């Protein structure tokens, strides 16, 4: 039994897209997607809504092994028509678990110097968008600096984000997801552990 997708694709995806657009154009702000989609096992509502909004037959998606062969993989193929790929570097979108050791952000498609837009957008599912160690963000979309405190990121993830930012204009774009909430961390954002 595959979980349902959008009941009103035109307007639900429009609203979700605006939340995603704000998330990535104002990094660090907490954006909510309307929790109208009961997500399949292994995906949060925010992840499921983002994928329904953005993924289709033109966008290969990478999922962790456990999700790929489970209901989430079937749900994604059915509703989005997306190809689920084995190799992180082939993915337009990827969903990873914030605490899993692999794959590293650098394993995904980082884009090319002539086409940096071809990089993967990585959705990182974490334990909470608040309550974790504080990170200070700066860059486009941020007047001055902005603090976030995501909970449940693997050790060294801040370094991965920093290394990803150092590749600018190449690099992946990250969305932290929990429940119905999303925080965007595009490659243009500089991330430091707050002091």
């Amino acid at each position, binding site marked *: 039994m595959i979980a349902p997708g959008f009941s009103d694709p035109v307007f639900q*995806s*429009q609203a979700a*897209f*605006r939340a995603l*657009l704000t998330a990535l154009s*104002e990094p660090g702000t907490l954006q909510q997607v309307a929790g109208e989609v009961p997500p399949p096992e292994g995906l949060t509502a925010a992840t499921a809504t983002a994928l329904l909004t953005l993924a289709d037959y033109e966008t290969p998606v990478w999922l962790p092994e456990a999700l790929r062969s489970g209901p989430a993989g079937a749900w994604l193929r059915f509703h989005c028509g997306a190809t689920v790929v084995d190799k992180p570097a082939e993915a337009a979108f990827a969903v990873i678990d914030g605490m899993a050791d692999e794959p590293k952000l650098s394993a995904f498609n980082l884009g090319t110097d002539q086409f940096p837009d071809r990089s993967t957008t990585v959705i990182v599912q974490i334990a909470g968008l608040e309550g974790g160690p504080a990170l200070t963000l700066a860059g486009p979309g*941020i007047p001055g600096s902005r603090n976030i405190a995501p909970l449940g990121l693997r050790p060294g993830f801040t370094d991965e984000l920093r290394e990803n930012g150092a590749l600018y204009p190449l690099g992946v774009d990250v969305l932290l997801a929990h429940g119905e909430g999303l925080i965007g961390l595009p490659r*243009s954002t500089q991330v430091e552990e707050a002091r």
Partner: protein
Amino acid sequence: MTVHQMPADNTKPAYNYAYLDEQTKRMIRRALLKAVAVPGYQVPFGSREMPLARGWGTGGIQITAALIGPADTLKVIDQGADDTTNAVSIRKFFERTADARTSEATEEATIIQTRHRIPEAPLKSGQVMVYQVPMPEPLRKLEPREAETRKMHAWAEYGLMQVKLYESIARFGEVTTTYDYPVMVNGRYVMSPSPIPKFDNPKMHMSPALQLFGAGREKRIYALPPYTSVKSLDFEDHPFRIQSWTQPCGLCGAGDSYLDEVVIDDQGGRMFVCSDSHYCETRRAEGHRGTMLGDAAASGLVEETTP
């Protein structure tokens, strides 16, 4: 051999909300997300053939169609004015296809689609500017081949642009580019601000609004997230400067707005009026009066109404 509805059928073929099909919107939305992640970089996208002519705003229309929803209020301007024919035509398009709520008031709009101007009233957080762009490549006049300009952006090789600007200084004593004046975005990409007058360039810098740029014919989308550094290219000894006029707006007396020149007779008579029609009307409603308001009524620009 198309499979189409013959006129005998009573069922009118229906267009999707905001004209574009959902797959096309997804493709544009993905391009927009990459565009905001790399400010100033031109993302290629699968620009569709639209029912309006190429070069007449099809890039901006596609972006607006991918953005707009029932919660939005749309303002469309051309040359700063809401009542120019192409602005009217595009506004009508969204009223018809997306049942869009529209407004001429800058502060009420959530989406402002524009050709050639940024409104005078400061933009706010949460507003989205959608620019219609004819030639997205700022280096195109220097190098016509896309394969070459793409490499120049990849390697941030912008020496040619500096040379071109400097040649103009050597010849005329200043940079003679008055519109579509190139900018450096976030210290990385040289970007075309679209053919806005350079008067408007400073409004882009650190704007609280999200700014999106669509070039339909050239199939490119690019973006400036809010609070992004946008610097007009210049030289230390020849700093960037904007246009100024020796007289204020003849209708509302504004001294801080971009002015259009209206020829009022064949004897060299001129009147200068705000290009931003809503700004000018707002000021007049507040009681500001320019010195030529009466002449303007005579030449048919405005009408006197009895209160």
